[in-house]
């Protein structure tokens, strides 16, 4: 998968789990949870959905590596 494809999948999952968020609100370098008001439950849902889509499970110790859209895309890109 290309980075663009992974970005599309991540954005699609965020919008599905948090339907009030607009795609334009997602800044690639901002912390996803604080900038989009995503709580720990929604964040876990996004990671669970990504696991279903890409087969990559993010352990809790790696949460700091998936804190922004850009980091999350890179994380999955390296592991898919």
């Amino acid at each position: 998968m290309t980075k663009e494809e992974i970005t599309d999948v991540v954005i699609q999952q965020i919008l599905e789990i948090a339907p009030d968020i607009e795609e334009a609100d997602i800044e690639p370098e901002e912390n996803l949870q604080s900038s989009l008001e995503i709580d720990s439950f929604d964040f876990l849902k996004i990671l669970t959905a990504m696991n279903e889509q890409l087969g990559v499970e993010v352990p809790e110790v790696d949460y700091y590596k998936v804190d922004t859209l850009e980091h999350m895309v890179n994380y999955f890109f390296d592991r898919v």
Partner: protein
Amino acid sequence: MSKFLMPSLGADMESAILMEWLVKEGDEVKKGQVVAEVETSKGVIEIEVFEDGIVEKLLVEPEIECDVGTPLALINSLNESSHEEELTVREPIEEISEPEKIVEKERIKASPAARKKAQELGVDLATLASKVDRTIQLKDVEAVASKDEKVENQNGMRGAIAAAMSRSNAEIPHYYLSTSINMTPALKWLEELNAQRNIKDRILPAALLIQASVKALKSVPELNAFYKDGSHLIRDEINPAIAIAIRKGGLITPALMNAQDMNLDKVMQSLDDLITRTRKGKLRGSEMMEQTVTITNLGDLGVERVYGVIYPPQVAIIGLGRIVDAPWAEGDTLAVRKVLQATIAGDHRATDGRTGALFLDKLNYFLQKPEELL
């Protein structure tokens, strides 16, 4: 025979639209059964009956807006089967079969967050709906509101909350207590537990904190109670109201029903389900009416200490702040630990500071022995 009324699903609710009946005349209903769906500013809420019986008559058609207290149906209670009694009460019922205050309104499609914001800002959704050719979103409401003066509508939802909270602060003599809890052992334990689990079965710290609070309430039941007409009534069931943010649209505090019977996995699943349904606008009436205590966790917003205002007739509100790295003395060494500030506001008419202190002590106890929370 009894009248099934439009319930008050929170102090800020004045009316709701009856969307759909899930029963028909002649159906037998059981206590707690969902019989209708109503739409409020908080989304669609399923409302339940409070007794066993037979649906005698449905008084209100779907898509009609009804004030709180409007009779919606007549339920023939099963334990008053005497025919004579029925006849005697039937007469006055005919009169109320056409409630005065029914206002027919076309249902407007809008997201729960949009609806809530519109009420707060005094934006008329009907006017907006004529301009927007789809479900109204939060941004549509905000776009309209930003053109107008940014004055909050004190007569709407914010006004009702203001009235309820002013009454609480005026009538309830609050006492406040706070304690620092070392969360390092609990978080480490949780991390090890989660490392062995599939991502779907992970437990979040919020669930652990709620489970610890519920266990502590079992030890100090005086705080899981109502204060009504000068009496302090301890409740058997623990239905903590959980403050849940609707993204960009305020807070809703539905109950996690019967938390006293749950293990940690069940708390996590039920909490996840409650949050999802709150945001989708799919709560049950009982979840909006039967809260016995409130737990507010503003930690996600970075607040370290929360001093709450008690929601009457409850007698306590538990505040859980953000978990921060802080200096912590252990024996004669100073270390950095994950520290949580737990607070409690109690109604001094029902309990005293000692009760609150016992609660915080128990909460700390369970968080130092997280394996007991499983």
